[in-house]
């Protein structure tokens, strides 16, 4: 089967590399592209046109110019939203990496059956309804909730602490949601590491400590970076969890956008904030793609 894939990819290679050998006719050149039309038309009409329309409103409404952007960066209430967004996304990324790393490591190393179970737990948590999980955290973290009760029973705290309707709740809930997005790429990277390399390290006299920092961690880097970058990007654009677990005083950018549209009908400001979020997302995603070894439809390079 593997041979068949390679054969297929090699067969695609020269053709797609583009008219070096001979110039194909126009019909030949666009062969098979007609099948793209339905989806292209659909996305064009319902995704690209509205998206561009939305982004344009930021420089057109209420008056043409960069007024909305000026306000976005000058008004201290708005800059606070930006600071919240980035600090929460950063914190969530760090926490989910710290929790995801040992889990991915254990999945790679325990006997196959156990590894399968751990992986299933990760997948179950990932595919369980987002709203259901967020609701669950809302109940768990409320002041009369289980977490506060357990902490009080253990004598760690004397009185219930506020863990929802503030950024603490947002960070806990989002870190929980993001762990699978770290574990899955990282586990794939670790799985591909040749154990012999680590053995070689220890034979050459490296202590487990040195071996971990100088050999194992650098080998995990690609999975770690792409997972962390993806989590950071996703965290910047998350709405549901911050809206339910967070408070009205500590908004993040997505909540701010919805609020401007729904409560204030201020499309210009919403659109400026949206353009900022799209720009950051696309730049970070471009970096993410640069970290990927190969493109999914790409030719064998």
């Amino acid at each position, binding site marked *: 089967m593997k041979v068949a894939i390679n054969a297929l990819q090699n067969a695609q290679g020269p053709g797609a590399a583009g008219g070096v050998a001979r110039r194909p006719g126009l019909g030949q050149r666009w062969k098979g592209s007609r099948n793209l039309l339905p989806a292209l038309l659909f996305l064009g009409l319902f995704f690209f046109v509205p998206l561009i329309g939305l982004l344009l409103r930021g420089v057109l409404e209420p008056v043409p110019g960069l007024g909305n952007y000026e306000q976005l960066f000058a008004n201290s209430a708005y800059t606070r939203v930006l600071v919240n967004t980035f600090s929460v996304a950063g914190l969530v990324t760090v926490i989910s990496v710290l929790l995801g790393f040992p889990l991915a490591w254990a999945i790679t190393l325990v006997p196959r059956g156990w590894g399968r179970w751990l992986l299933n737990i990760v997948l179950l948590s990932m595919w369980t309804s987002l709203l259901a999980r967020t609701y669950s955290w809302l109940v768990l973290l409320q002041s009369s909730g289980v977490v506060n009760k357990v902490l009080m029973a253990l004598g760690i705290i004397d009185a219930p602490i506020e863990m929802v309707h503030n950024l603490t709740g947002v960070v806990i809930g989002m870190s929980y949601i993001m762990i699978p997005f770290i574990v899955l790429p990282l586990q794939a990277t670790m799985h591909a590491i040749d154990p012999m390399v680590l053995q070689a390290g220890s034979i050459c006299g490296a202590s487990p400590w040195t*071996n971990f920092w100088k050999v194992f961690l650098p080998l995990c880097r690609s999975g770690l970076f792409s997972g962390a970058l993806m989590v950071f990007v996703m965290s910047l654009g998350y709405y549901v969890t911050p809206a339910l677990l967070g408070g009205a005083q500590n908004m993040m950018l997505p909540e701010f956008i919805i609020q401007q549209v729904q409560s204030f009908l201020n499309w210009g400001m919403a659109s400026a904030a949206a353009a900022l979020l799209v720009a950051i997302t696309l730049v970070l995603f471009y970096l993410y793609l640069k970290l990927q070894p190969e493109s999914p439809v790409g030719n064998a390079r």
Partner: protein
Amino acid sequence: MLLSPNAMGRPLRTGLYLTTGVIAAFLLLPVVFIVLLSFGSSQWLVFPPPGWTLKWYGQFFSNPEWMDAALASLKVAVLTTIAAVALGLPTAFALVRGRFPGREMLYGLFTLPMIVPLVIIAVAVYALFLKLGYTGTLFAFVVSHVIVALPFTIISIINSLKLFDQSIEDAAVICGASRLQAIFKVTFPAIRPGMIAGGLFAFLVSWDEVVLSVMMASPDLQTLPVKMWTTLRQDLSPVIAVASTLLIGLSLFVMFIAAALRRRAEANA
């Protein structure tokens, strides 16, 4: 040695296993908790519950609002699945088999809805449908869900189409089948796992979609997540735990199907 548990050394191994146990428990906690809570008798969600009951399930199934929402969810999800597979199938064929320039860029374009934050898609589509007067219609729900479901179906179908050797289809044509016949009778059955996986993804994406749905919803038409969302903002009623449990049950069911399909595909390979 850091990758073989036996050579790792006891303290490190014990430490890692303990940490893993705690993190796995952390991942399971909210899922198990919500299921238990849906059977608990306390209105105030006291845990552990003072007793066990099915009364919240009774309330869920006897309340026409919840039932309408569940039915609407199902309708939207099924229509989204059909539309996403129908649009994704020709796209995947063109991207895998086409020989035209810019395929890489087009692939990026088609997966863009997966990357652009949902909030922004929701606001953009909402603005469009507001202008057209379509908000709160079934059409608006399905269209907005298809936008985000489409990348999943395209990717799944591309993956299985790349595994399929086109010369088998050519062989059918040489043996006298028309190209269309060959595609329907030979290629489609061969890439069925990818089509089904893509359909399942589309279904789950639509079934669980909150942000787009909240923007598209009207008092007359709302899906289950929208109903949960609006109820959640008023109180934490145990009926939401019931709805959550049903959503979890469905996810488990779909995961189970996906796993069974994967096993069958592996057995065939």
